[in-house]
């Protein structure tokens, strides 16, 4: 028998390699963000604006054709402070992952919040996109590096409570 330590764990990697093709509403979103514009689509029935749009309203089940440009400023609706390292995250810990409701949108999307202490991030915090240099823009979310606090007054909970 070997004197070595008994085996206590094994590595079981899981890897799926896709070639993802975006068409329709998603492609249009990527095309516009490559020019620094964030667009969504408005549902013809419930009038909600989805960003990024998928071409249909998930609530009403109808196609969303009307394109709406939304702001690159918004409100943190909910967030978490990430303090646990992960092999595929290369950000300095701790950092904040947040749901941000852009002005003009009716659904929050996921982004990082930076340029402040993690303790300063709160629900209702007003933030603005920090864009990568224009020369680096492409058809990708990565054009927005993160969001930073704007210093505007916080938004009252009642104003965004349906978007948590």
């Amino acid at each position: 028998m070997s004197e070595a330590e008994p085996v206590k764990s094994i590595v079981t990697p899981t890897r799926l390699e896709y070639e993802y093709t975006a068409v329709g509403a998603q492609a249009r979103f990527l095309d516009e963000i490559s020019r620094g514009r964030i667009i969504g689509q408005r549902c013809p029935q419930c009038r909600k604006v989805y960003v990024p749009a998928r071409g249909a309203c998930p609530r009403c089940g109808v196609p969303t054709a009307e394109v709406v440009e939304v702001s690159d400023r918004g409100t943190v609706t909910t967030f978490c402070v990430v303090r646990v390292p992960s092999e595929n995250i290369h950000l300095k810990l701790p950092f904040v992952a947040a749901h941000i409701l852009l002005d003009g949108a009716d659904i929050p999307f996921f982004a990082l919040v930076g340029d402040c202490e993690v303790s300063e991030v709160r629900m209702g915090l007003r933030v603005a996109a920090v864009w990568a240099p224009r020369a680096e823009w492409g058809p990708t979310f990565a054009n927005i590096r993160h969001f930073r606090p704007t210093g505007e007054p916080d938004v009252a909970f009642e104003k965004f409570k349906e978007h948590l």
Partner: protein
Amino acid sequence: MAAADGEVTFSAPHIVEYAYRRSVGAVLGRFFTGLRERKLVGTRTRAGRVLVPPCEYDPDTGESVAEFVDVGPSGVVTTWAWVHAPSAKHPLPRPFAWALIRLDGADTAMLHVVDAGSESRMRTGMRVRPRWRAQTVGEIRDIECFEPETGR
């Protein structure tokens, strides 16, 4: 990129990857430690069945299974499926068989790879033996594959 009808499309690689590290516990830990020593280990239930890979509990009664027994290293193919065109992630770069192999002394069969060279050499009931890799570390791939016992 613009398609013929003016519609914009974009394509990009999308890779979903999780590098899980999984605790194996005392029983499977013994199995993997055995592999590192080029030994195959199973567990025996109270009724006398030998389970390989080992189980912590008797699947028939739910009782704890604590007695370890050495099995193999050779065994018998109980069923198999030939892979004509291996993918990049398959364990062998040439056509091979996925097979259930009941090791000598075991009552259950274990999934592994048989490097038979060609599908015509595969048959249910064939005798196979493990081919160990040069450097064993305590995981299932310490067995590179099984190969037919009777020459190549």
